[in-house]
């Protein structure tokens, strides 16, 4: 525990890898795919040393790190499955460029499945 914290600080100070702290929220049944936990506070590294993180990267990160079962309920191709609503800071991601939306420290990203239940 103490050791990983040290590592984290080293990375942070050296500035080689910027960890971005994000809050991810899953709803409408999607939480069932990630241990039934709705809110995840996560640190995500930008891909391949890039200095920014976009939604496309975040989706593949989520798929690898958070989704524990039935990934097809969450994604179709390289984007979310039709019927999954995405909000970045309470704003529909359609307005911010969908997969190309850039993320910033402390952003809140919400995924809601609209398909379940009547």
């Amino acid at each position, binding site marked *: 525990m103490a050791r990983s914290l040290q590592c984290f600080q080293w990375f942070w100070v050296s500035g080689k890898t910027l960890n971005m702290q994000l809050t991810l929220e899953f709803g409408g*049944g999607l939480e069932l795919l990630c241990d039934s936990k709705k809110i995840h506070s996560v640190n995500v590294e930008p891909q391949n040393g890039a200095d920014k993180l976009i939604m496309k990267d975040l989706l593949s990160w989520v798929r690898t790190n958070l989704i524990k079962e039935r990934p097809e309920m969450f994604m179709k191709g390289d984007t979310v499955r*039709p019927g999954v*609503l995405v909000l970045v800071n309470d*704003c529909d991601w359609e*307005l*911010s460029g969908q997969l190309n939306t850039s993320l910033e420290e402390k952003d809140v990203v919400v995924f*809601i499945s*609209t*398909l379940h239940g*009547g």
Partner: protein
Amino acid sequence: MQEVGTNPKRSSGRMCCICNQRRAALKRTKTLEQICKECFYDVFEEEIHQAIVSNQLFKPGQRIAICASGGKDSTVLAYVLSTLNKRYNYRLDLFLLSVDEGITGYRDDSLETVKRNEIQYGLPLKILSYKDLYGWTMDEIVKMIGLKNNCTFCGVFGRQALDRGAALLEVDKVVTGHNADDIAETVLLNILRGDIARLSRCTSITTGQFIALFSTIIGFCLLQTLDRLATYAYFKKLDYFSTECIYSPNAYRGFAREFIKDLERLRPRAILDIIKSGENFRISTTMKMPEQGTCERCGYISSQKWCKACVLLEGLNRGLPTLGIGRNRGSVNGRKNSEETKGGKSIESKGCGTLDF
């Protein structure tokens, strides 16, 4: 250091097309205008208000039960209807009415949501169970008949249960909320099955009315897509239950749903347009409704000797669960007319929670 404007999310912080004061949060389904949260609430609620007014759904002083399943549609309907009732002084007495089919892990959890809604919206709640009404839970029915025809039971028992609940609450009308996606699916499925006549049977696709014994049951399409219903519910922090019924719709409906979702992605208003097409398919000739009598067994309205619920129950109790479903022989009602056979067939292939009028 980031330059100002490199982040499309912030730089495109466009202003709302309607108020021009707050930052846009989403696009309107109909017009694709970018609007803010507050204006979205206004537009959303106003569209529902307009549908209520133009269809003359309610009269002042009426007692209305909202069919509450704990799901998104009914939770949004209950919230919006109680809001509009106050805002526009409809002078309605509103109630929540829930049917407990007896589905472990689904209905028992969703009823907890409905009980919270009772407190959140201050609307009195009545719950009726299949077990009390018919002596069978849905779990027991499925154990006996399997998963194939269970939605026939949902449809027939469900509607009658709502009507009996209406009698207990002494309400004039029961209103069930539906989203635009489900109605568009139903329109498509009817077209795919060659059943255009079914589309024309109801007075209106968006406000299908069924006159039952004690009340009128209105299937009210909120004309909002699932996407927008979910957005509204999320922004308003409405408490709803979101797990699919485990005895859920058939594969054919599933394909129609996927198809509609793909269309919506290409063109968001496709869903609303399918419904509009459905409305235009309505044939103007007046349908001859089957003559209404009463069921010899339970006294409920029925065009046959026995009502559909009694036929289904007889089958269950005699261990012949397919009685009354589709093309079975030896029906209690003897020779069936073609109308009945056809009705049975289309009920059979319907998913639960769909508008069945």
